[in-house]
């Protein structure tokens, strides 16, 4: 401490000056050395503190920081599988994956989005709907993730952009595969389409399987067979730098591509069936009764699914969605129509099985039917009546009175029991998404749904397939197939075979049989089928006009379903009614009768008469199938 006292010695002069100075110098030197030593101790302490810090980081927290370092370095990237292709039964490509380029913007890397969009619009066309979708997506996703602005860039656009890309950080061109349906609207309702995964779907799917996948099946085959078509996601561990650029791949689990599907549809036949419907809106379903294969499934008007893949623009969607013809609506599956007279063959079979009457039963038809103790008249379609009507004549001429009587005798619950065996009122089990079950009424059904008791008059009109009764075209075709096969039935199926990608082998899906329709007396089938043959091939048959020049024996039944109910005494005048109030024209058929290969149901909405409109369409469809590829002779051989 002495050393730190102020030192006044330096001021002294005189003879002892030199000595004092020398002593001061020594004292100063000692002072300095002491201070230097203290400094060195501080230095050593300081460096020790650093070492302590390093030990803390490098020894005690080594594991922690190693993990962070690895997380920095290595990232796991999903490798989305390529989606399976869809072919028709003969290998015609219906859905494919085409390489395409899309433009993405990573919002985080862009300073001024508007300026960038402005600049981009000088190289490529960006539509209003592109911008709207982009803005919507930007609001929803992470700013570090690329948000698509334009899909399907042309080669010229890619070239123009590529040259200028370096001037626009955060703007990237991404190559990927886009779903494409080369036949456009043909079979569009069957195929459905894929679209961008939406939030609702995100909640239901296994998100790990879909990491890296942008699209998912929305309707049709694409939705129903999503699991088969999608495949399994792969992963790769990559080394990325701080900017997220992949430097090298460390390890890789390749994705398992989705499986290809071969449909039961013959696309040429499908196209022919679509054309057969002409200008009518409506549906045609053609089944192979022997195994349930769906040969054609037509709903008209149809639509091109391609625009939906990358987001259809609002105006086009609105136009499709609000069109009175409802092109997006798959009538074959979702359309529930009164089956009208096409229910009659099944009604006869039900009545015979229920032993309400026998094959020889005849009914007198004065042109109307009255319930006992009621005044209300139920009219026959032929004003003058059919006279005495046998079972066969009832089907051939489609006498309504006969079936009023039959329904009344059977009662609604017995009708329900036996008709349900044909698949009415329930889903057929087709491998397509969203099938409707229609309505097969019963007393209990009405109590449950309408909270009302059942009235006898409702039974009467149910006997001719009107009233509450509703069936989809698919159900009608399915029931027709069951008649053709004398009760044997199969769940309809659209997919014929599944194929692993890269393999030639097809895994054929065999038809899945359903419980057969219970008919104790096989003669019942003969009577009904013979009557249906006469519908086409006899002078008085309602579909007699299609018999001319027919190369095979067909069994059919026409139907005319009322859309608009007339008063008791009103006359139906087709010309006066607006078209949308016209009756639906229906026709069911199968052929050849000896060895049925095809069963069809045709509905021409507001077509008027089943015999005049629907039956000729049906004939075209049957011809298109049976007269192609020598199916008639082949069928006879087998």
């Amino acid at each position, binding site marked *: 401490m002495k*050393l*730190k*006292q*102020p*030192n*006044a*010695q*330096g*001021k002294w002069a005189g003879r002892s000056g030199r000595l004092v100075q020398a002593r*001061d110098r020594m004292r*100063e*030197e000692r*002072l*300095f*050395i002491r*201070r*230097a030593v203290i*400094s*060195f101790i501080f*230095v*050593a302490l*300081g*460096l020790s*503190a*650093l*070492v302590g*810090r*390093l*030990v803390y*980081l*490098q*020894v005690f*927290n*080594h594991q*922690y*920081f*190693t993990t*962070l*370092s*690895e997380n*920095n*370095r290595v990232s796991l990237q999903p490798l989305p599988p390529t989606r399976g292709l869809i072919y028709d039964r003969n290998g015609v490509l219906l859905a494919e994956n085409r390489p395409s380029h899309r433009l993405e913007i990573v919002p985080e890397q862009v300073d001024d989005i508007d300026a960038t969009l402005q600049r981009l619009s000088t190289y490529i066309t960006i539509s209003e709907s592109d911008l709207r979708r982009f803005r919507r997506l930007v609001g929803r996703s992470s700013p570090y993730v690329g948000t698509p602005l334009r899909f399907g860039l042309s080669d010229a656009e890619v070239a123009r952009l590529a040259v200028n890309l370096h001037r626009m950080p955060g703007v990237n061109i991404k190559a990927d595969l886009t779903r494409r349906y080369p036949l456009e609207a043909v079979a569009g309702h069957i195929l459905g389409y894929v679209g961008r995964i939406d939030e609702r779907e995100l909640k239901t799917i296994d998100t790990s399987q879909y990491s890296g996948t942008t699209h998912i099946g929305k309707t049709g085959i694409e939705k129903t067979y999503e699991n088969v078509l999608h495949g399994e996601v792969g992963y790769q561990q990559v*080394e*990325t*730098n*701080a*900017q997220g650029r992949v*430097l090298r791949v460390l390890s890789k689990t390749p994705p398992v591509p989705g499986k290809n599907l071969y449909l039961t549809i013959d696309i040429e036949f499908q196209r022919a069936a679509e054309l057969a419907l002409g200008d009518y809106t409506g549906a045609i379903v053609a089944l192979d009764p022997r195994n349930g294969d769906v040969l054609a499934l037509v709903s008209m008007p149809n639509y091109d699914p391609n625009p939906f893949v990358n987001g259809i623009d609002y105006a086009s969607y609105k136009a499709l969605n609000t069109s009175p013809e409802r092109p997006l609506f798959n009538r074959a599956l979702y359309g529930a129509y009164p089956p009208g007279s096409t229910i009659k063959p099944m009604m006869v079979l039900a009545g015979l099985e229920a032993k309400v009457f026998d094959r020889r039963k005849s009914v007198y038809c004065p042109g109307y039917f009255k319930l006992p103790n009621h005044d209300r008249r139920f009219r026959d379609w032929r004003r003058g009546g059919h006279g005495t009507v046998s079972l066969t004549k009832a089907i051939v001429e489609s006498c309504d009175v006969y079936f009023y009587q039959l329904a009344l005798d059977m009662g609604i619950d017995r009708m329900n029991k036996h008709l349900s065996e044909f698949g009415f009122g329930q889903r057929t089990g087709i491998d397509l998404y969203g099938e409707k079950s229609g309505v097969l009424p019963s007393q209990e059904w009405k109590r449950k749904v309408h909270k009302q008791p059942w009235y006898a008059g409702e039974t009467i009109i149910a006997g001719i397939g009107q009233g509450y009764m509703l069936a989809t075209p698919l159900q009608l075709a399915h029931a027709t197939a069951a008649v053709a096969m004398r009760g044997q039935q199969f769940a309809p199926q659209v997919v014929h075979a599944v194929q692993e990608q890269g393999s030639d082998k097809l895994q054929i899906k065999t038809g899945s049989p359903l419980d057969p329709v219970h008919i104790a007396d096989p003669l019942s089938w003969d009577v009904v089928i013979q009557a249906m043959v006469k519908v086409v091939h006899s002078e008085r048959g309602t579909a007699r006009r299609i018999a001319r020049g027919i190369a095979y024996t067909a069994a059919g039944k026409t139907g005319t379903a009322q859309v608009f109910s007339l008063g008791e005494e009103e006359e139906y005048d087709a010309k006066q009614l607006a078209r949308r109030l016209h009756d639906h024209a229906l026709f069911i058929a199968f052929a050849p009768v000896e060895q049925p290969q095809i069963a069809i149901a045709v509905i021409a909405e507001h077509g008027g008469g089943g015999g005049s409109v629907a039956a000729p369409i049906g004939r075209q469809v049957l011809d298109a199938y049976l007269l192609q590829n020598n199916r008639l002779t082949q069928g006879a051989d087998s």
Partner: protein
Amino acid sequence: MKLALLQELSAVDDERTVARGLMTRLHLDLPLLLGILTVAVLGLTVLYSASHMNPQLVVRQCIHVLLGLIVMFVLAQIPPHLMRSWALWLYLFGTLLLVAVLLIGSVGKGAQRWLDLGVIRFQPSELMRLAVPMMMATYFSNKPLPPRFKHMVIAVLITGTPFLLIVKQPDLGTALLIAMSGIFVLFLAGLSWFIIIGLGVVAATGAPMFWTFIMHDYQRQRVLTFLNPESDPLGTGWNIIQSKIAIGSGGLYGKGWLNSTQSRLDFLPESSTDFIVGVFAEEFGLVGLCLLLLVYLFIIARGLYIAGQATDAFSRLLAGSLALIFFVYVFVNVGMVSGILPVVGLPLPLVSYGGTALVTIMAGFGILMSIATHRKQDSR
């Protein structure tokens, strides 16, 4: 046998004397030079890795090192008494340049630090790193020690003027370092402990005022980020987080030379300049870094030893201050990269890429060597 061994030994001894004699004649201090070269070689090695194996950068840094060695060699030839007589002019010249910088200096990175001399851009604050301790040592060399109060007031003026001028630029890091080089002179001159503690108290109470009135936004941001780097992991906290990851993941023995992923993949910013020690720690681990710190400790110790051996007050104070300021460089840089000090833009001496700082450091070593090699002539 014995004779041969003796002869051999004396031969070695001769060589050593010859070597020492040669070194003295060249005015070089061999231990200090070896320490400097060791660090410089280690620095070039890690710079090669930190610069993503860019040989051009390494060659340029080699040129910087050579330039530094030349400056060191030249300064080592100048006897301390000459330096002492130039100190005042150097100091005044430097202060004048600092004023000039504020008036006509060019702006770089948001601060006015450079004087554009047409051919080269010159940073006068670098000159003051040497001029201030020289001026301080000169001032106290003929004053009675420990210093008196009025001398201390003058000393505060000597150090404070350039300090404030540099704070104005603003370059707080350099200003603080220059202030510290002056304070080190005061401390070595025997500044009373009462005053040291008193200054500590003043500093503690003055810090909040400093925070509000003198510090710039970016400086406050640096301190805040230092206190909580995770608060802004992608912004200003990024450097600290990534350098801690680099150091921590290096572990005991490191990932090996050229294997620093943090630097190679660009996660560690400024990896070849201010944050180069992160790369060093990642590749060579705790062991490697401790060895590096030991070499630094050796250099500092050698500097203090030279100061202790000096025969006049000027040499002692200047050499001691230079050695201690060198320690501050190392401490602040490693402390900043390892996250115990706020981020101030300060390179790791002799290792970080960059010419200016390196030349200044080497000039300091030149002065040290001059003091080390001229003391005998003086005492004669």
